[in-house]
Structures are given as structure tokens and as C-alpha cells.
């Protein structure tokens, strides 16, 4: 698909110059703080009428926070929004809609049991007569090349059509600004092409589009202007058509080189401890990602990191390796033993350990005490926790104390419920619980997500130490700083395809960015 896009773009495309017909929205110094984190730090952004404006940035750069303030879902802590020359307070989505701001979410908010027209009527302040509304839906949707049958029940419709409903719902309110959050992430290439035509038509009519996407080639193809956020700040603005995908990527991820410290470089790679061969699995739900023919070998002594934008198959890959999703036996091999069809306890007994992305509700049970959460992943691994069916709470408490002191898990009183721990402390606990076993193979998804710098350093050091002691460590992360800090080899996952891992010393951020933006698929496709 990306090949097609590039070719079209180079052949001229339909994109025109940035319109300068007038300023529609101007954000001045918008600031929003979550706890200690500045999600948006004095962000300035100008939107002109009739332009398609890309908002680019890594995960956690503050894109969602910013558009939520435009849509009234979050209130800014500082700064102001100027709409058509007048300062406005947008304190809820209804007032955003009243101003003429519409938003199409990445995950749809539709009632599956209702029809198209019923869903749209629910979102309109004054839906009026249902028959008339259905006729309007038919007209507007045909007019914009997004045909819809108002009487269809949503449950029966594919994802692409569901997105159309959201878009038409926006259009019916005759918005002057449409915000789209990764609209193509759920679309087929053909559906995406149709969407682009609609967006161009809207822009031609003077409606502005604020377009969030990680697919840089799309952005180059249809966007007039781009604003790039990093760590909550605007780092640059540009005309994407004058840039290359790699220069855009370097603006997104920051080209400044951080003090890379691999610890002792990996010794000569040892034997393969974790092997994925031709790992594939269909998408289980409309929002899941299909895994395509993934090959990977992780050797004793090394850390392999998988970079990628959220929702490109990381969770599915993790589930297949941990055994929560079963695949063919030979697709996952642990220390030479095929185990794709084995359960997670079997794999743990083979000295593998897993840390999922979601701490609460996946890695730990919120209402269980920490000692109970020790039992959760270690009941079958010969830690003396279970004897003839009975759980030894004394042993669980002992291990809990050990993990707590070794990994500096801070708690208000002894052995609290998991839900009462802060995110960083719980992360130290769930990582520490597995590291304490000294596993031969460790797979970690987002090892330091939302963890403060000190705790993150502690966790990363522990991962490096584990690898150097002869284990194979696979880290799945969206944090490029982290990846460059700890990885020996780096691969990139994009739409369920995995690129061939490359040596971290020769890998560059630009290259990772290109692979993230679809290059991994081409690479995997060719291989």
C-alpha cells in the first residue's frame, strides 16, 4: 500500500498548497498537567480554514491531550484557544460541537444493537424526524462518497463502514473543523483511499481537518501542514511534502543522541533460547491486529527490543509468546522445545517469564494482596508456594518481602492490595516478581511505561544484568530512548509484521521511524 501511496504522491497527487484564507483556530500556550507530568507544555498551534493539518509525534508526545482540549474533553491548565478570532472556553464536547468542532475517534462509540440512523440520532442535539434524518444521511453520505444505508444494524457492519458512520455523524453537524485520530489504522488501503478523497473534498469546501497519524507517507500525501510534538512541546512545523519520511521521523523522535549505555556489550551470542518461526495468527476482534509470518531468534546473553507504535500487534505477539493465545507448536520454541500450543504454566516451568503491558488486571489482580499476586504467576514453578493443593501463605509472604526489598517497592503498609500501589511501584513489583526467579527467557511488554526515571533505570539495569547472566530477554517497547539504552538488537513491528532485527549500534532513530511508518511491512514482505 505504501508503495502505491508514494508513487501517487510523486506523480503529483491531489494535494494543493496550504490555504491562507483565514485563521480558524489558534491555540496559544496551551498547558495541561497530569500529576508530575506536563502532557502539554505551552503548545502553540494555528489552523487555517480549508487545510488538512497533521499532528505528529510519538506515543505519549501529547497529541491526544491536545485534541481532547480542542474537543472539550479536557480542560487546559493554562493558555487559551482562539476560535475565529475570539477567545473561547470549550468545557465539554457539546460546546465544541456547537462551535463547529467535530471529532472522529480511533475507537468508535457506536451502539452495536442499533441502526445507523438511530446511532446518529443519539448524537445529535436535535435529531428531529427519523425519516427526514435517514434521508439526510443518505444524501450527505452519497454526496461525500461515503454511502451508508441508514437502516443497517451496526453489529452487521465492517469496521470501515462503522468509521463512515462516525464521519457522517460529524458531517451532519456541518463542522468547520474535524479532528481525526488515526483514522486509517483500522482501514484497508482501498477504504483509506476513499477517506482521503473525502477529506480533500471537505478541505476544498473550507473545512479544516486536524489529522493525527503515524503513517508518514499518508501525511505527506494529503496534509498541507504539519505540527510536530515531542514530550508535550511543539518542536517544529513544516510542509510535509517538502520533507522525507525519514526527516519527519527524526523530528518526531528527536535526533539528539542520548548517552547510550549498553553496559558491557553483549558477549558472543550464545545459543538461541527463544525462537519464533513463521508465527502467524488471525485478528481475534475488529480492533486486534493480525500477526503475519513473524520470525525472530533471541540468543542467550542479549536483549532484543521490538519498537513500534501502539496497536501494531505488540499485545498479540506477547500473548502468543506467553501462551495466552495458542498457535501451532513450532511457531514458538523455548530452549529447543516447541511450545506454541502449550499453556503459560508449562512455559513458566521451562524457565520462561512474562511481564504484560497492563499491570492491573493482567499482570496483577487489583483486589489481591501482593503476596497473592506472587502466587498468581509462580504457583507452578517450584517455588514452594503450593504443596498438595494447598497454598503456603507464609512462603508467599516471604517472597513478597524479598521482591519488595530487592526492587524497592514502596507501600504504605505491609502486603497491601495491588490496586493501592502507584503505577511505578506496581511495575517494580510485577517485573521484580519475574526477575526474582532468574528466568532463562524473559519477555517484557512496556517495562517502564509510566514509571519515574529512577525506577525505570533500576528496571532497565536489572534487564541488562539478567541478559548478561545468560538469559534471553525480549523487550517490547514504544519508548525509543529505552530501546536504544538497553537493546543489543532492534526490530520494528508494524501492522503485525516484524522487521529483521538489526544491530543496535548501527541502527538509527530515523531508520526506526521509517520502519514504524510502514517500512517494516515492506521489509518483511520482501524477505
Amino acid at each position, binding site marked *: 500500500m505504501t508503495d502505491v501511496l508514494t508513487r501517487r504522491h510523486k506523480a503529483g497527487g491531489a494535494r494543493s498548497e496550504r490555504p491562507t484564507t483565514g485563521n480558524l483556530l489558534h491555540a496559544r500556550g496551551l498547558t495541561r498537567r497530569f500529576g508530575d507530568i506536563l502532557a502539554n507544555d505551552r503548545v502553540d498551534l494555528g489552523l487555517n480554514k480549508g487545510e488538512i493539518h497533521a499532528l505528529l509525534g510519538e506515543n505519549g508526545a501529547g497529541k491526544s491531550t491536545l485534541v481532547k482540549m480542542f474537543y472539550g474533553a479536557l*480542560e487546559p491548565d493554562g493558555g487559551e484557544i482562539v476560535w475565529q478570532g475570539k477567545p473561547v*472556553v470549550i*468545557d*465539554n464536547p*457539546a*460546546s465544541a460541537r456547537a462551535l463547529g468542532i467535530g471529532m472522529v475517534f480511533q475507537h468508535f462509540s457506536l451502539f452495536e444493537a442499533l441502526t445507523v440512523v438511530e446511532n446518529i440520532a443519539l448524537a445529535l442535539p436535535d435529531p428531529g424526524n427519523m425519516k427526514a434524518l435517514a434521508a439526510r444521511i443518505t444524501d450527505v453520505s452519497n454526496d461525500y462518497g461515503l454511502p451508508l444505508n441508514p437502516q443497517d444494524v451496526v453489529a452487521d457492519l465492517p469496521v470501515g463502514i462503522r468509521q463512515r458512520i462516525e464521519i457522517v455523524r460529524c458531517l451532519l453537524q456541518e463542522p468547520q473543523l474535524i479532528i481525526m485520530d488515526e483514522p486509517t489504522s483500522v482501514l484497508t488501503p482501498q477504504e483509506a483511499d476513499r477517506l482521503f478523497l473525502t477529506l480533500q473534498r471537505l478541505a476544498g469546501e473550507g473545512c479544516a481537518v486536524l489529522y493525527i497519524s503515524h503513517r508518514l507517507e499518508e501525511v505527506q500525501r494529503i496534509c498541507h501542514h504539519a505540527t510536530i510534538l515531542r514530550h508535550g512541546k511543539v518542536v517544529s512545523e513544516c510542509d510535509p511534502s517538502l520533507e522525507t519520511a525519514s526527516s519527519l521521523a527524526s523530528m518526531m523522535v528527536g535526533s539528539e543522541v542520548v548517552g547510550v549505555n549498553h553496559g558491557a556489550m553483549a558477549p558472543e551470542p550464545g545459543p538461541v533460547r527463544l525462537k519464533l518461526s513463521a508465527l502467524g495468527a488471525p485478528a481475534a476482534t475488529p480492533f486486534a491486529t493480525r500477526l503475519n509470518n513473524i520470525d525472530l531468534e533471541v540468543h542467550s546473553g542479549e536483549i532484543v527490543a521490538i519498537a513500534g507504535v501502539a496497536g501494531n500487534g505488540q499485545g498479540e505477539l506477547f500473548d502468543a509468546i*506467553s*501462551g*495466552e493465545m495458542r498457535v501451532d507448536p513450532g511457531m514458538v520454541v523455548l530452549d529447543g522445545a516447541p511450545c506454541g500450543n502449550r*499453556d*503459560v*504454566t*508449562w512455559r*513458566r516451568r521451562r524457565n520462561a517469564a*512474562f511481564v*504484560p503491558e*497492563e499491570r492491573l*488486571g*493482567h*499482570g*496483577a*489482580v*487489583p*483486589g*489481591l494482596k501482593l503476596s*497473592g499476586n506472587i*502466587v*498468581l*504467576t509462580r*504457583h*507452578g514453578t517450584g517455588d514452594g508456594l*503450593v504443596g498438595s*493443593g*494447598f*497454598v503456603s*501463605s507464609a512462603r508467599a509472604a516471604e517472597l513478597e518481602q524479598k521482591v519488595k526489598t530487592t526492587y524497592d517497592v514502596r507501600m504504605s503498609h505491609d502486603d*497491601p*492490595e495491588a*490496586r*493501592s500501589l502507584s503505577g511505578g511501584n506496581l511495575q517494580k513489583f510485577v517485573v521484580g516478581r519475574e526477575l526474582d526467579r532468574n528466568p532463562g527467557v524473559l519477555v517484557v511488554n512496556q517495562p517502564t511505561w509510566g514509571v519515574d526515571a529512577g525506577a525505570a533505570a533500576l528496571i532497565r539495569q536489572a534487564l541488562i544484568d539478567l541478559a548478561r547472566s545468560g538469559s534471553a530477554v525480549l523487550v517490547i517497547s514504544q519508548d525509543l530512548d529505552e530501546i536504544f539504552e538497553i537493546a543489543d538488537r532492534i526490530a520494528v513491528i508494524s501492522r503485525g509484521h516484524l522487521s529483521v532485527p538489526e544491530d543496535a549500534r548501527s541502527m538509527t532513530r530515523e531508520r526506526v521511524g521509517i520502519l514504524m511508518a510502514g517500512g517494516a511491512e515492506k521489509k518483511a514482505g520482501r524477505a
Partner: protein
Amino acid sequence: MRIELVKRKEHSRKMALLSPVIAVGLTLAAAAILFALSGTDPLQGLYKFFIEPLTDSWSVQEIVVKATPLVLIACGLAICYLSNNWNIGAEGQFIFGALCGSFLPIVLPDFETSLTLPLMLVFGALGGAVWALIPAFLKTRFNANEILTSLMLVYVASLLLDYLVRGPWRDPGGYNFPESRLFSDAATLPLIGDGRMSIAAPVAVLVAIVLAIVLARTLKGFEIRVMGESPRAGAFAGFSAKRLTLFAFALAGGLAGLAGTMEVSGSLNQLLPTISPGYGFTAIIVAFLGRLNPVGILVAGFVLALSYIGGEAVQASMGVSDKIASVIQGLLLFFVLACDTLILYRIRLHSRRVPATGEVSRA
């Protein structure tokens, strides 16, 4: 003034113990209002309903007789509910278990050995388990909603019972009354005391204690609690949701079937068109009132049994409809579920806020 629920950081142990007490208190208050509305003295009504049955040996024994099946069924249901399996069909499992348990004394009345009673109990438990495994299988295989399927099977079982006692299993010497022959002595549970109390009562206590230990101390109990609270984490722990569903339903059905067999063998001594005053449904209240904890269920079963006897008492002595017992049971469940909120949330009272600018524009 505005009432706000604020989430607690952890479960409150104090509230876990206090909330059933609050619920009982609110139920008493509501019952007093009900008595007043029906034109009787509320205090006297409460006394006759809740206290007087406890002052008499015969009615205390009757309470135990009624509490026994409630406790057995509720213990099984607690396992189901803790593991997120919504078995509403214990009444059907109770009836079908009773049918299977009655097979020997009705169809083979001459088989009278020391094996008769144990075999009946085994048949009863197996029958109840099989009946419960139907919705469990439909859930695991076809993702069918177990609430509906288990509930519908209640009616199938009770119509089957009705057919059998009016048809093939009718007592040949019973003047065409719709009831089975009386069970032989070998098929009758040994009685305790001077009333209808049988050894079923200590069996129920034993089952509750064993299940309490299983839940609190074993890996199986751990699995049940984890799967109920967080199925995703349970899968991560390597537990199978499907296997646990089959296990929980089979256990609950087995205990309900056992209760059914002990009811017909001990208290009734024959099959009748109606063998249960809704034990299987009342046990749902018992399970929740007992905090899904087998020891709590022992207490709760006694309280609910008291409401049956109390209902009969106020009808006999004060002329209040005995439907009041069902109403009070329903109120109790309602208040128990409502008060459970307090375990993970605390109530904060807000005096009216000065409307912020945002709310003005919203209006």
C-alpha cells in the same frame, strides 16, 4: 446536598463485616413499615416474624430443616458466583437431583440394603451435577448466556417432576393422589431430635467448613477468586476459564442435587409435585447475604430459614399474607447488594457547590 461515592484504595475489612448487619437493619425497618401498612402493629409483627420462632424447640428444629438445603445450595452457588458463573438454576438442579436420588426407592423399592442410602445420595449429586453441566457446556461451547439457560432448565426439571409423580412414578396404592410411594426405612435418612431434623443438617455444616478451607487455603480456591475478579490475570496465571466454569457448575449442581435427595429422603420421605418452596432461588440470597463465604452462608441460611417460619407464624397469628416472607427476602437481597457498595466505596456528602462557569454554560 449531593451524595458522592468515592472509591477506596483497598477493600474495607470493617465494611465487609458491617454491610450485612446494616442490610439486616434496613430490612427490619422496611419490614416494620410493611407491617404498619398492612394494618398491624409493626413491633408485634417483627417480634412474631423474627423472634418468636426462636423461642420454641419445634420451630427451631424446623428452621434448621429449612436452612439445611439453603446452606448446601448456597455454598455451591458461592463457588459459581465467585468465579463469575451466574448459575440461577439451582432450583432445577435441586429437583433433578431429587428425581435421580429417588430412582432407587421408587423404581426398585425392594432394593433395601445398607448401600441403598449412599447410592441414592450419589445418584442425587450426580443428577444435579449433570443438570448443571448443561448450561455450563452451552456457555463454554457456544458462549450461551448461562443465566438464561440455567433458569430455563428450572422449569424443565419441575415439569418433569410433575409428570413423573402424576404418571409413571405415582404410588400404585395411593388413591390416585399425585405423589410417589413412601420411601422404605433403608432409603430414609436417620433423624436427629424429635422433629423432622435429619443428619442432613450436620452434612451441610461439614460441606460449608470444607469449602471454606478450600476457598481460603488451596490453589483451587485461589483460582476461583482470581478468575472471578480478573479473568485476564487468571489466564495469565495459567488458569482455564472454561474448565473452571465446568467445575463450578458441576460442584454447585452436585450440592443442589445432594440437597434435593436429602430433602425428599429425610424430610418429605416421598416425591410430591412440589418438593421445594423455592430453595434454589432463596439460596441466591443466602449466598450473597453470606458474602459468598461458606461460613457466612451458614449464618445467612439460618436467617433466611427463619423468614420462612416467621412468614408462617405471622399468617397464622396475625392474618398477614405469607407472601410477606417473599417480600422480606427480596428486600434483604436488595439491601445486601446495595450495602456491598460500601466495601469498595465510601460515601461523601457534598453541600451544594457554587456553580462554576462551566456548568452555567452547560445549562
